[in-house]
């Protein structure tokens, strides 16, 4: 049977590839013939009538803000409430409270609380890590900004959990809810955060409220998804047992489903906290307080040292929060049984003792200056800044020819040809080519989605800019996949490499992209390549991790069989491991593409042009507000189309259709 079906699968795939090649060849031919005509271009300063009407919407909303009931009773209430929540957290740990010149809980109190909580929820190892991490941040000279960031993150995460966990439970229990909510969650997560900043400020003005809500949109989906997953993973038989004993639905939920899903829910909390922290720098664009402001300022003055110092603080905070919540998820599962270090009897009094120490530390930090304001004794910040600046300076001077060569190579042979093909072909040629490729690679549904999205993009009036962004995205994705395959295969095959490199990948994922944007500008100037390379650095760790997981998921038996048949390493990789993890690789492409799109947009801040610039300009120039909104919509549409196509292609890999 296998022998008969395999050639069929193979020819199916070959047919697909052949058709795609044909489409591309036809495209290039038509491009050569009709180049420059009907490109639907829009000059940078021009706006369409759609954009103008959106501008009018903006002014109308602004005028109505204090009279329209929808605003008065809904949006304004939310804005005020959220601001107050954030301000409350801030006055606890970071900003002067009332007529005190310092927050209620000073650095000693915060450090004590963090260490104590980490120990109680996790173990003493993460408690030490938390202690060390927070003290480090203080020594960097960034205590107040870090506390501002922590306050904002806490507020956002709190709201996310209060809304997200019940929503996740509902989704886990009800299939209908899943059908409604999943596409919304997809949307919330694939939409580049940059895009909804402007609409949010329209509704909620700038400040901590808009920042919190922007963070919320990005950070809520993980906890909803994981809670739903945990709830729906409860074995059906256990639920039957509970029902057969006469439980009501509420009793089953409370006593069976939620306790059994606790571990997954805590993992969801972990993911939400990570997502919230990653929004820190973007939130600064709408006047969110904290480390994000430091980074954005450093971006303006191209101060690599300050950017790196602040970025490092964000990474440290992220690592601490990540390890603590992960330890909490482990403890939730095993705590009851595994005896703690000192035996369960000793734990209670120890917790009590710890609580007393913590309260005492809080009291000290409330009363005494040295415990309230982080002392200036040791300054790690300056050496770090100088180190980062000198490294970048060295690379700039010594490696200038290499960096210039790389930039020129990628630009001349990657970005420029593709962009020229995409945005100077007549629009109908590009449209047909993209839909055709979508049809061949992803199937009918994907092609329809692509056609609909492209049509709507034409409607936004930003076709040419969209093609420019598409070109940059594709180039970046290709680079990401090259890195993903090379490093993913390496990490998948070698445990030692995995152990060494994985923390590096984790740190790279957590480091705010704005931070490494600064040295990249210093190295490559403000060009499209900078946007591309920043996107590559942002997306590559994800792709590498997914590919490594896929390689590792190939059954050991298959690899053993190939080895004992005498295959070389290269043959095993190309003939066994890669084909058998084809589905995972396709998924890695999908994820890489989404991440790349999110960063390519940020590239608009630094010479990336195209849709990214339109969004940024719309955000900063009133006359371009409508165009900025339209550009945001175009980015989302591009994201949806690309996402559908790659997901459909991934699905087809399994069925071998």
């Amino acid at each position, binding site marked *: 049977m296998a022998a008969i079906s395999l050639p069929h699968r193979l020819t199916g795939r070959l047919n697909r590839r052949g058709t795609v090649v044909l489409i591309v060849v036809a495209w290039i031919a038509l491009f050569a013939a009709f180049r420059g005509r009907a490109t639907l271009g829009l000059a940078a300063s021009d706006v369409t009538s759609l954009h103008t009407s959106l501008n009018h919407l903006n002014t109308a909303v602004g005028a109505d803000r204090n009279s329209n009931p929808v605003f008065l009773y809904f949006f304004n209430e939310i804005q005020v409430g959220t601001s107050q929540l954030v301000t409350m957290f801030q006055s606890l740990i970071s900003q002067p409270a009332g007529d005190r010149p310092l927050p209620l809980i000073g650095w000693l109190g915060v450090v004590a609380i963090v260490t104590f909580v980490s120990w109680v929820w996790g173990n003493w190892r993460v408690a030490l890590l938390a202690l060390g991490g927070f003290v480090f941040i203080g020594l960097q000279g960034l205590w107040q900004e870090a506390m501002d960031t922590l306050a904002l993150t806490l507020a956002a995460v709190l709201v996310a959990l209060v809304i997200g966990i019940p929503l996740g439970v509902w989704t886990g229990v009800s299939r209908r809810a899943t059908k409604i909510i999943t596409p919304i969650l997809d949307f919330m997560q694939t939409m580049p955060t940059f895009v909804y900043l402007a609409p949010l400020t329209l509704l909620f003005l700038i400040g901590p409220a808009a920042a919190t809500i922007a963070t919320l949109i990005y950070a809520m989906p993980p906890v909803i998804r994981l809670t739903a997953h945990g709830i729906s993973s409860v*074995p059906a*038989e*256990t639920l*039957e*047992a*509970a*029902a*057969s*004993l*006469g*439980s*009501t639905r509420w*009793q089953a939920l409370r*006593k*069976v489903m939620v*306790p*059994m899903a*606790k571990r997954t829910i805590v993992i969801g909390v972990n993911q939400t906290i990570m997502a919230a922290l990653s929004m820190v720098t973007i939130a600064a664009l709408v006047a969110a307080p904290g480390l994000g402001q430091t980074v954005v300022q450093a971006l303006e003055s191209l101060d690599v040292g300050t950017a790196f110092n602040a970025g490092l603080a964000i990474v440290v905070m992220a690592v601490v929060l990540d390890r603590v919540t992960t330890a909490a998820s482990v403890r939730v599962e095993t705590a*009851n*049984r595994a005896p703690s270090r000192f035996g369960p009897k000793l734990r209670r009094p120890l917790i009590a003792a710890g609580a007393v120490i913590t309260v005492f530390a809080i009291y000290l930090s409330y009363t005494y200056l040295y415990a309230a304001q982080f002392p200036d004794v040791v300054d790690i910040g300056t050496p770090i800044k100088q180190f980062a600046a000198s490294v970048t300076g060295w690379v700039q001077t010594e490696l200038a020819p290499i960096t210039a060569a790389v930039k020129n190579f990628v630009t001349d042979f990657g970005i420029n040809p593709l962009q020229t093909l995409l945005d100077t072909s007549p629009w109908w040629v590009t449209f047909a080519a993209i839909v055709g490729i979508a049809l061949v690679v992803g199937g009918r549904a994907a092609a329809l989605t692509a056609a609909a999205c492209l049509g709507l993009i034409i409607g936004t009036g930003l076709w040419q800019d969209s093609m420019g962004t598409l070109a940059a995205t594709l180039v970046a994705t290709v680079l990401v996949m090259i890195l993903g395959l090379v490093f993913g295969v390496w990490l998948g095959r070698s445990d030692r490499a995995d152990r060494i490199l994985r923390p590096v990948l984790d740190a790279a994922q957590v480091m705010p992209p704005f931070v490494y944007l600064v040295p990249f500008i210093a190295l490559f100037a403000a060009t499209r390549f900078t946007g591309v390379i920043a996107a590559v650095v942002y997306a590559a760790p994800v792709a590498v991790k997914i590919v490594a997981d896929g390689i590792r998921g190939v059954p050991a038996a298959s690899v053993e069989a190939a080895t004992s048949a005498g295959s070389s390493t290269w043959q095993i990789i190309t003939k066994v491991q890669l084909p058998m993890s084809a589905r995972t690789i396709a998924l890695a492409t999908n994820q890489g593409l989404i991440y790349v799109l999110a960063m390519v947009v940020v590239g608009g801040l630094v010479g990336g042009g195209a849709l990214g610039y339109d969004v940024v300009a719309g955000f900063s120039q009133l006359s371009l507000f409508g165009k900025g909104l339209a550009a945001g919509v175009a980015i989302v549409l591009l994201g949806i189309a690309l996402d559908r196509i790659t997901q459909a292609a991934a699905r087809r890999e399994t069925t071998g259709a």
Partner: protein
Amino acid sequence: MAAPTHEAVQDTTGAAEPVISVRSLWKVFGSRAARIPATPELAGKSRREVMDQTGCVVAVKDVSFDVAPGEVFVVMGLSGSGKSTLVRCLTRLIEPTTGQVVFEGQDILAADARRLRELRRSKFSMVFQHFGLLPHRRVIDNVAYGLEIRGVNRSERTERARAVIELVGLSGYEKSYPDQLSGGMQQRVGLARALAGDPDVLLFDEPFSALDPLIRRDMQSEVIRLHNEVGKTMVFITHDLSEALKLGDRILIMRDGEMVQLGTGDELVGAPADDYVRDFVRDVPRADVLTLKWIMRPPRAGDDLDGPELGPDVVVREATRMVLAAEKPVKVVRDGVLLGIVGDEEILAIVAGD
């Protein structure tokens, strides 16, 4: 094989009011499932035909039986026979399509949610194949779960749980967690949990399929012991014929959702209703199941009629030695009436495996 006498194929129920009474129970999965039993033409078709024609799956087809009080009623069949669906229909874990399920005189299918819950809490409980325990609770809290949701206070339910734990032989493990126990012990917890609420009927869904053979044997003995001790009515689902014969007072064989034969173990082995059952019971050691009434022959002229006497319900294996050792053929007698003769030839025919 001597033809069974007329007494053998009687339905033993009717003596007392049945605990569970099932009439014409149907379960069909699919859209507009109710039309299948309602339409005589569709109702008569086989499962395959209905599937092809309507896309619906007939899981349980027109099943009727009674369960007497204190009886161990076994439903047997291979996978896909509908036995698991059937037992779930009895407690409405799966809602039947049509039919009647009467429990101690009450129609279960007509009960509203609250009444159903009460019935589940106090009248019947179920033991599951993969145990269905709550991994985040200790053994004692697992066992007390049914009482907890009923609102019984802590001290009372802990005491009751302890008693039941002792009953199933798990004393000392109250504070352990399920994942610290072996499979057999986990199923004992499941058993204890089912017993804790003092139900009238216990339902078992292939409870020992997931256990090792040796443990399975122990658990079967455990069930027999419990049945002797507390005397509860039991409905037992299994695909293992030897288990069914060991535990069951009466056995219902199902195939493709339909009833094939309902009777005691020796009826199934001695008088299989069709080739399917015959094939099914082929490997059973007949001497262990059949009783003398199945192998006796009518007395002939020339038979020596003063040999030893045995009742008709004595299992052949137990009678073998006596028959072979006796010089005269054994008389099969009930209430002083001579029913037949069993001689060496009859015994040897069975033992030699005809």
